[in-house]
């Protein structure tokens, strides 16, 4: 089996192959075959290699003997390997003569083999029932009934023996060839007679069978004989469950799209949107207005707070800027006064002006009775031809010369004003158009608290002076006003309106004039100023444009208590002496300033100032001092105690040609005056010490206070004048007139 023809170099084998290779000759095998072969050979031309030996017949016929031996001739016999152990080349062990051509592992296990026996034992031990191999069953059956199922048994047996043979093959392969042949032969026999084999196996069986029976002939496991140990679980029964949801609701819609459809839709929508738009806009506007109002109200409140802060800041800044003036205003006393007898001067301090009233005349100046530093200035126009359509009442404070603290704007010139002595926030103004208005300075200065309305409830002409009256018996606040229409009105502040009554109509004496159609017209004289008696509040004096001064009472409306033929032209101002209420001073356009005593038709003093005198005021600190301003721009200060004939100070405050002084006011507390001019500027002037000489009490009467002394001083002066005969008074007066 293991020999190959090519390899064998045996001498005994003859080269039959070679002969068969020879082309032509040699009657080789069987006859039939040779014929075919010849036929085939003939049909083709054999190619002969070039180097083929050409042998003769004798050579061809020579016999060459070859002997086959069981030794492997290819083995290298003198092979050596180097041994590191011994340090020299040692002959390598000879490989055997065996050449393995094929090795094939079988899948059978012999029952009597070690492995088989071990498995049987193990299965016994664990008691695990291995599935029975088929052949053992068959064998058992065979033992039982030999005849019945022989065929089947044979088949099985065959399979079993075949398996056994294969196993043996494997085992035998490593054994000698002869042995192998022997066993094959055996097997062949066994195959040949199945029954014989079975019988022989049965002979072997007894011991084996006992084991098999005891172990119930288990199947032996080898690497090719697997044992399945799968388990089948229950299959759950299947069930079908289905639900159907409600499909989402559907609707139908259809339309035709055409250009005109689109166009019409747009038109319709546009028209609607326009309608809506207008409505919405209106609504929005309404809302906006509301919002705006709310906002503005809030903003105003906020602004007021801010305004207050800014006012304080402004005052601080002004105080820094006008630091020197602020000092002068309080503490500067002109040292020159010590060296001049009976003369004084005026030190200009601040100028107060407001941008919007630069071209207007100062029509009235008045200090607030409660706050000494606060004074009201009225702006309007004295020129009939140049009336402005706006007027202002500004309240300045000397603490802030740069800007008025309060501004009240009106739509025509403000001619006069008065501030209530007990309610210093109530200001009443008389306007050029004959109206009067009351403002509350604490509140908004934009809208008047009261304003005269209608044709009958107002003066027909310019209101020249306005004065708060003493509160009525039932506590109603009221004021009086005089106008060039010849009437004096009393205004009472009712709950929500002004109640007006005519106090007196200033008819002229002998004023009956022939009117048209034989009627008689009584002429009225226009009032130009008025002043209340400081003590008897029913009595008041009214100066007229004809130059008369009427002494009237609020109790009688028809009769004058006294008429003074005071001036030849309009009377501008009258002022009562602060210490003696029987003495008053008047001034007029006829350049004259006259000092009067009550119920004495002739003046006590007459001074000619050389120009129309706009205003005259008694000083609050002295009974004999008064000051006057003229259109020449000069301030005249008189102290009758010092000089009965001349002013002790004449000082030009504004340029003569360009400007005129109109009004004047004494500060009640400090020694300074404010004068207003035609350019809307108010100048404050400090009176030098000579202009405010106090009375030195006589040594024997040191206990007397200044008031008594002042009264005494005036009395003394008056007694001098009174004693003089009427004629003689005029003479010195004439002598004392100041020539301009």
């Amino acid at each position, binding site marked *: 089996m293991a020999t190959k023809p090519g390899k064998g170099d045996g001498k005994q084998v003859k080269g039959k192959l070679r002969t068969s290779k020879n082309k032509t000759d040699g009657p080789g095998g069987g006859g039939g075959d040779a014929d075919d072969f010849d036929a085939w050979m003939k049909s083709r031309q054999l190619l002969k290699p070039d180097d083929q030996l050409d042998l003769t017949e004798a050579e061809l016929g020579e016999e060459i003997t070859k002997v086959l031996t069981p030794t492997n001739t290819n083995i290298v016999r003198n092979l050596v390997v180097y041994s590191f152990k011994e340090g020299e080349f040692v002959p390598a062990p000879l490989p055997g003569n065996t050449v393995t051509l094929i090795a094939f592992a079988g899948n059978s296990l012999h029952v009597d083999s070690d492995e088989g026996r071990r498995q049987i034992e193990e299965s016994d031990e664990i008691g695990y029932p291995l599935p029975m191999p088929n052949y053992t069953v068959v064998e058992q059956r065979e033992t039982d009934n030999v005849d019945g199922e022989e065929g089947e048994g044979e088949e099985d047996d065959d399979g079993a023996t075949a398996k056994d043979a294969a196993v043996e093959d494997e085992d035998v392969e490593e054994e000698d060839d002869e042995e192998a042949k022997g066993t094959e032969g055996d097997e062949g026999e066994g195959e040949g007679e199945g029954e014989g084999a079975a019988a022989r196996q049965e002979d072997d069986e007894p011991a084996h069978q006992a084991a098999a029976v005891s172990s119930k002939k288990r199947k032996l496991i080898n690497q090719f004989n697997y044992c399945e140990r799968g388990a089948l679980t229950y299959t759950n029964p299947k069930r079908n469950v289905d639900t159907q949801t409600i499909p989402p609701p559907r*609707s139908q819609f259809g339309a*035709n799209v055409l250009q005109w459809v689109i166009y019409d839709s*747009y038109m319709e*929508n546009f028209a609607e949107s326009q309608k809506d738009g207008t409505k919405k806009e209106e609504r929005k506007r309404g809302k906006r207005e509301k919002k705006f109002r709310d906002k503005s109200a809030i903003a105003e409140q906020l602004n007021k707070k801010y305004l207050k802060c800014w006012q304080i800041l402004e005052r601080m800044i002004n105080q820094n800027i006008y630091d020197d003036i602020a000092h002068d205003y309080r503490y500067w006393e002109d040292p020159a006064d010590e060296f001049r007898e009976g003369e004084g001067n005026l030190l200009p301090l601040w100028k107060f002006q407001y941008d919007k009233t630069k071209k207007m005349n100062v029509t009235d100046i008045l200090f607030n009775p409660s706050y000494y530093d606060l004074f009201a200035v009225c702006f309007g126009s004295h020129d009939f031809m140049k009336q402005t359509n706006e007027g202002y009442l500004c309240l300045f404070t000397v603490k802030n010369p740069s800007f008025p603290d309060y501004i009240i704007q009106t739509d025509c010139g403000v001619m006069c004003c008065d501030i209530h002595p007990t309610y210093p926030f109530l200001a009443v103004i008389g306007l050029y158009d004959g109206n009067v208005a009351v403002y509350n300075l604490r509140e908004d200065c934009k809208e008047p608290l009261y304003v005269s309305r209608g044709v009958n409830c107002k003066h027909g002409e310019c209101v020249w002076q306005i004065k708060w009256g003493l509160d009525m018996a039932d506590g109603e606040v009221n004021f009086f006003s005089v106008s060039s229409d010849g009437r004096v009105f009393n205004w009472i502040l009712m709950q929500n309106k002004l109640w007006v009554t005519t106090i007196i109509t200033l008819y002229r004496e002998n004023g009956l004039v022939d009117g048209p159609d034989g009627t008689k017209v009584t002429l009225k004289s226009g009032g130009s100023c008025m002043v209340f008696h400081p003590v008897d509040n029913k009595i008041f004096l009214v100066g007229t444009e004809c130059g008369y001064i009427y002494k009237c009472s609020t109790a009688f409306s028809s009769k004058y208590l006294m008429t003074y033929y005071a001036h030849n032209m309009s009377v501008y101002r009258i002022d009562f002496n602060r210490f003696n209420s029987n003495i008053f001073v008047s001034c007029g356009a006829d350049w004259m300033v006259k000092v009067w005593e009550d119920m004495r038709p002739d003046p006590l003093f007459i001074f000619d100032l050389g120009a129309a005198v706009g205003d005259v005021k008694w000083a609050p600190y002295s009974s004999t001092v008064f000051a006057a301003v003229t259109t020449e721009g000069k301030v005249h200060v008189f102290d009758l105690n010092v000089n009965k004939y001349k002013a002790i100070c004449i000082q030009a405050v504004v340029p003569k040609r360009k400007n005129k002084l109109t009004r004047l006011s004494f500060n009640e507390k400090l020694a300074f005056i404010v004068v207003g001019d035609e350019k809307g500027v108010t100048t404050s002037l400090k009176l030098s010490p000579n202009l405010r000489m106090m009375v030195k009490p006589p040594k024997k009467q040191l206990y007397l206070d200044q008031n008594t002394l002042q009264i005494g001083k005036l009395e003394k002066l008056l007694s001098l004048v009174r004693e003089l005969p009427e004629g003689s008074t005029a003479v010195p007066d004439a002598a004392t007139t100041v020539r301009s």
Partner: protein
Amino acid sequence: MADEEAGKEGEKKIVHVYPLVKHTDMNEEMRIEAIELSITACEKYSSNYEHAAKIIKENMDKKFGIYWHVVVGEGFGFEVSYETENILYLFFAGNLAIVLWKCS
């Protein structure tokens, strides 16, 4: 009259290019989204309505679930059944009608 109208039309057509919703039952959110989408698409592909429709459809599918159908055109008629609350019939640019509806 005709002339006047024509004149008016020429003048007013220029004015009315705003999107005008002719019919819809969508909810607020979807409607706004759909209108926005339609306008964008139609403005972008004003020369190719097919493309515009495709874009609208794809976007609507993405945003509000599949099975949207979109028609963009200047003149057509339609009769569709749709899943309620999923239709928008819109005019745009004065001459364009866009119909979007969902139906699975």
